[in-house]
């Protein structure tokens, strides 16, 4: 890979980090201050047992905010990308099953800011985010692996 390609790769990664992390921070923050509303949205998916609904509504927005901030800032990238990929996977399953079961509900993804019911577009948007997050995770893992190898060879050299 030449220097130009490497630069380009880094730029794409930087933009992907800003986009994915930024969306997570935004999605988290808009839900933080109205846990009751978000609990309603979570309950509407009819996926979780009711004892877990409020716990999810209380903690999920903050988990989103924290991993979003960490990702935008660019440290702990493997960890933050892993959480975001995992969460996007869970959201995809939740939205997919709701659409398949014909539940006529709001996404709740961005609190009450996003008006209207969710549809195939919601699913498509989340698939995009999932792919981007998984790509960031894979890239971060590879980078991490390379760094490990370099360190090892440096040690051996000494």
């Amino acid at each position: 890979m030449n220097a130009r390609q490497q630069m380009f790769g880094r730029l794409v990664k930087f933009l992907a980090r800003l986009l994915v992390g930024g969306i997570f921070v935004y999605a988290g923050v808009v839900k933080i201050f109205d846990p009751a509303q978000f609990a309603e949205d979570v309950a509407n998916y009819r996926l979780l047992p009711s004892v877990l609904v409020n716990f999810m509504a209380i903690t999920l927005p903050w988990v989103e905010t924290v991993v979003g901030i960490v990702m935008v800032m660019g440290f702990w990238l493997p960890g933050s990308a892993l959480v975001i990929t995992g969460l996007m996977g869970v959201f995809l399953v939740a939205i997919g099953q709701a659409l398949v079961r014909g539940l006529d509900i709001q996404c709740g993804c961005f609190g009450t800011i996003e008006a209207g019911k969710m549809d195939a577009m919601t699913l498509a948007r989340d698939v995009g985010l999932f792919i981007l997050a998984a790509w960031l995770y894979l890239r971060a893992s590879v980078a991490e692996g390379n760094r490990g190898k370099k360190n090892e060879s440096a040690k051996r050299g000494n």
Partner: protein
Amino acid sequence: MRRALLQAVILMLAGAAIGLLVNAFLQKGIPLIRPPKPQLRDQDRIPLAEAKELWDLGTAFFLDARAPADYAAGHIALSHNLPVEQFDQYFPKMAAMLSPDSEIVVYCDGEQCDLSHSLMTLLRERGGYNHVRVLANGWTLWRNAGFPTESGAEP
């Protein structure tokens, strides 16, 4: 991989801990475990066909319990908006149109929506109206049946 997992666990625990802490101090905080919803009794429900008959006769008041924005986006024709979350603000205007004997049909949207249930309780307890029934999942059922609808905010 192990490092990524460790970071992921720490990030999730940190987020969850902050969430629980903030919720404890947040004015709009919610209980950790959701109290069970009161169930709607059969005699409190009105079937769609009967609701339509009342609508055709023009003898019943239809009240939409949803938020004003949802009401404005579309509602049962001739219904009025009494958002349950702003009950005190909207109720006096509605009360002027209602009498204790008025037949009232309240509705919101979705099988799980309990705004109409709450509105029924408020109307009975605070307004003394005894002939209030809930058209469960009202907006969706009414619209899907092709019955008359309209849009626009409550005048």
